[in-house]
């Protein structure tokens, strides 16, 4: 099992969710985050002072999937989240050693 951590533009969440649903993925967890990256230099103003907004609103989607569908999942996220503009985000894949469903105590692939 792997944990896929995708940091995407907030308004792409809906499309990513639908792309994953179509793959049959039934679970994910979403966090509101701020991202710092190459997509910077955009300036805002506040009361006359220009300033660079370093941290942009992003959404982090965490999806745990069985090993065999990792690449399919990653592809689906990439496709749904891409706008082609800087700041589209990243996907990180981490190893998972165990997964447990709290309700049933199921473990492993069956738990996710």
């Amino acid at each position: 099992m792997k944990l896929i951590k995708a940091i995407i533009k907030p308004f792409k969440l809906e499309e990513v969710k639908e792309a994953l649903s179509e793959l049959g993925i039934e679970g994910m967890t979403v966090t509101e985050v701020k991202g710092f990256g190459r997509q910077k230099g955009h300036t805002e103003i506040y009361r006359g002072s220009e300033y660079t907004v370093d941290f942009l609103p992003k959404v982090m989607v965490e999806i745990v999937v069985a090993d065999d569908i990792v690449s399919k999942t990653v592809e689906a996220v990439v496709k749904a989240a891409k706008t082609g503009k800087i700041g589209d985000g990243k996907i990180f894949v981490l190893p998972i050693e165990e997964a447990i469903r709290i309700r049933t105590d199921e473990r492993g692939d069956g738990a996710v």
Partner: protein
Amino acid sequence: MKHWYKLVLIMSGAFILATAPGSPAQLQAEEAEAAAEYEPTEDDLAFKAEYEEMVAEHGFHAYAFDFFVTSMLWTVIAAGLVFLMHLGFATLETGLTRQKNAVNVLFKNVFIISIGILTYGLIGFNMHYPGEWQIPYVFGIGSPIGDLNQDFTLGYGGIGLAMTGYGDFIFQAMFAATAATIVSGVVAERIKLSSFMVFSLVLVAFAYPIAGSWHWGEGFLAELAVPFYDFAGSSAVHGFGGFAALGAVLILGARRGKYLSGGRMKPILGHNIPLAAVGVFLLWFGWFGFNGGSVLSAEPKDLGLVFTTTAMSAAMGAIAAMLTSWILLKKPDITMALNGVLAGLVGITAGADAVGPWAAVFIGLVAGIIVVFAIIFFDKVKIDDPVGAISVHGVCGVWGTVVIAFFNPDISLVSQVIGTVTFCGFAFVVAVVLALILKATMGLRVTEEEEDEGLDYSEHGQEAYPDFGKVTG
């Protein structure tokens, strides 16, 4: 700094424009001159004559065009201010409870003011001021209001009640819902919506006007040797509401997770302190209508005094609660400061026209101290009042009603105690009985699961702040 010359340019241009001939300034000056030289024309004189004729034509009502008109105007404005107190209550209660119940709290507040006005029209008004008594001095049945302008003299209540019937009605209608609103904050976050709606409907439609008739409707409290005195309702409104809340909450119980085993307590924090502060400022503002409007005319002596005593008691209540919480709890607690304002306001309500400004300061001082101790006390005895309304309205209502006997020789301590006990006791009993009946029938509380999930979800299927992420939605 390169922009400064632009400013200078713009301003110079504007100046020239403004002072050039034909400019506003110029026109202004010319008009002023013209005005100074003005002689009334024939037209003016004709208009004047016409105006006077019009007034004369009103003939029979003409006498009304002075004190009466002004008083009536004040009455409806005051009604508007009392209405605004309901926004104050709504925001205060929402601010001092949790996010997950905010929609529910707001819904209840919209309901209460609405149902309060309607039932007051349907039966309350004529029960509050019974034309005739079914049980003398105790109960007069209510009927819907008719055309309250029918009193064609307009001189509805003479100099002491200088307003039309509609003016009287709408001012009192705005008052009526206050008692129920006080309960609303105390039972928040766990009462079942439908049961609360029944509870507050009965309170506002029956209990409040019946009790009110004993004092303001010339009932038995007005017939005491020295009549009971409660200017704008420290007991008749606030004590009533506070003790009704106490009764309700005794049956309802505390919010889950507040009082832990082993005597420990976990406070449940209000989710939006700025909103609560907005509420208290609006309540203070509205209270000028609540107390000021209770002068029942625009009588200038009383009006000035009442505004002054109201403001000074509130101000002293705030400072007193600030200092008390600072000394007692080591930190200056904003929610205590806010409750201190309200404590001062409730305290002065019974005697706003019957004491001077420094007595008002004293009343506010003690109210502001009491309220902090009372809030701590009720928590100690596990009476869970999220907004502190039992302390603010109940305890300080009693304080305000009783204390004025010491400041005004025309007020009797005995009568004050009788009146206070009557209002608070009646409200308490009605609330307990009502809550027990509801508990046995419809159920009084939401389920534990619903409470955990929050009433916004379980009762309304809505969220107060649904946006997730700044730009997701």
